[in-house]
């Protein structure tokens, strides 16, 4: 009775070992189920190896570079002598390796059976990996996403985020196609390193999913930082030139730079994996599920980036945990995408959860909502850090706060309080009556709530 025979038939089999997949696996074993996890590349997936973690290491170095440049103003004599790309990659690789080791150890300790190889769904209860069939009562699809390239010819100079993380130098100049989260983060990091950056965004603004007040502030800050951007016109062509790349827009305008980062979104990894053959519905490659993440076939669920909606690692965790609880019979609560916290780690950072003003107006009616914007200029700690920015709260009149948004250096960490406010349906006075710790950036959350309640303290 060794592990082997048991390992071929599981209670739960997860296809893909990224954020969503491993969360489903880990939570399932906590409920006493036997779990297999199939991974063709590296445990941890996009987020750990080519997503969240390495980009945030690069952005921390960017912050250090900015601070070194500015620190004389604060009485700290330093000189910034440039980026040492080899050392930066070492640091980044060290963080990734450490987390990868930790995750691998954790899965082992919790007795998740990891199967290495590319899996294909071959029946509603079976996955084939390199000729071996693994059966399970429940299957969770978590094969994640990959950068969309829109048919552009990738090369040394036309790259996606994955290649950008392996560059051996700081580019002199770069065009970033796409002003969403990933594009804005790379633009921000490179600008801090000294690159001349231009963002091309087809929609009318950068980070188009954010609240208008946040967008305005980000664009203002990026401009101040010397990051150029061209919004509202789509590109038609990207080509290599003798010494770089050229991007042509619909209106004929052209831009040239040393390299071009293609950050126009991420598409699902579902092709050729047998999903449709088993009767699962795909829409432009995404797996369509019901509200409870069930695919409608057998006991097959889908989680993470292959499910349409926010492509975020912690949404993947949330869905992975949700499905594990569902399989365990615990009828978990559905957390809608609108209530998932979001952070963009550019300089300045953005955080948001819940409704933007336009979305709230649409949902509740323009005359049913009220908003407040608290300018970080009034916040002591933000002045000390030297950051501009704001906290915006959107409330239903006489009702709960349904959206919290913020922008400014380091403001991402305010997402915790914001998330509780929105998810717990707090009223402005619930927050306003709790005086916040002085002098923190967190105070700005309290001030915004006081203002929404009609009694600003310092505002």
């Amino acid at each position: 009775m060794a592990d082997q025979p048991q390992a071929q038939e599981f209670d739960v089999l997860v296809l893909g070992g990224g954020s969503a997949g491993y969360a489903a696996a880990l939570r399932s074993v906590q409920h006493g189920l036997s779990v297999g996890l199939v991974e063709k590349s590296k445990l941890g997936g996009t987020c750990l190896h080519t997503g969240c973690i390495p980009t945030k290491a690069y952005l921390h170095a960017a912050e250090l570079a900015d601070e070194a440049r500015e620190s004389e103003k604060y009485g700290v004599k330093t000189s910034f002598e440039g980026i040492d790309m080899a050392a930066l990659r070492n640091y980044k690789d060290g963080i990734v390796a450490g987390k990868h080791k930790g995750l691998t150890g954790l899965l082992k300790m919790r007795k998740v059976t990891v199967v290495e190889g590319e899996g294909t769904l071959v029946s509603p209860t079976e996955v084939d990996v390199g000729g071996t069939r693994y059966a399970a009562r429940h299957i969770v699809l978590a094969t994640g996403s990959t950068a969309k390239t829109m048919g552009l010819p990738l090369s040394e100079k036309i790259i996606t985020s994955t290649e950008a993380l392996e560059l051996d130098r700081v580019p002199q100049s770069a065009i970033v196609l796409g002003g969403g989260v990933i594009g804005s983060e790379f633009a921000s990091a490179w600008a801090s390193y000294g690159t001349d950056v231009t963002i091309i965004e087809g929609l009318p603004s950068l980070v188009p999913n954010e609240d208008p007040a946040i967008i305005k502030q980000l664009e203002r800050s990026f401009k101040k930082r010397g990051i150029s951007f061209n919004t509202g016109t789509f590109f038609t062509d990207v080509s290599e030139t003798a010494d770089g790349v050229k991007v042509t827009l619909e209106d004929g305008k052209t831009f040239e730079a040393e390299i071009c980062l293609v950050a126009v979104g991420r598409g699902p990894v579902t092709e050729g994996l047998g999903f449709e053959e088993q009767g699962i519905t795909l829409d432009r490659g995404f797996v369509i599920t019901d509200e409870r993440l069930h695919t409608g076939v057998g006991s097959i669920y889908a989680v993470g980036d292959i499910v349409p909606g926010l492509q975020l690692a912690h949404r993947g965790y949330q869905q992975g945990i949700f499905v594990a609880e569902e399989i365990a019979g615990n009828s978990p609560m559905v957390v809608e995408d609108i209530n998932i916290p979001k952070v963009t780690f550019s300089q300045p950072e953005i955080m948001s959860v819940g409704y933007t003003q336009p979305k709230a107006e649409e949902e509740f009616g323009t005359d049913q909502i009220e908003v407040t914007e608290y300018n970080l200029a009034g916040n002591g700690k933000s002045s000390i850090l030297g950051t501009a920015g704001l906290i915006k709260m959107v409330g239903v009149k006489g009702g709960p706060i349904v959206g919290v948004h913020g922008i400014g250096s380091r403001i991402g960490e305010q997402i915790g309080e914001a998330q509780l406010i929105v998810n717990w349906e707090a009223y402005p006075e619930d927050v306003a009556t709790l005086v916040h710790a002085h002098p923190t950036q967190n105070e700005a959350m309290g001030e915004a709530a006081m203002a929404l309640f009609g009694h600003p303290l310092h505002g």
Partner: protein
Amino acid sequence: KPAPQPEPAAETSASTSPSGSGAEGYVTPLVRRLARKEEIDLSEVTGTGVGGRIRKQDVLDVVEARKARAAEAP
């Protein structure tokens, strides 16, 4: 999705007090949300917290009592 509609009685009393904090009327957002989920009228719950404030346990107790009554019912 949060309901924008006016809430049950106990809640309006909390939100009409200008400071929003009159000890008797005040419940935390979590208690308010739980009460709504369990369809419990907070004005009929006895609070055991400081100054008679209704705590989550008080609401949970009412839920339990109701379940027990439902079980006993012929």
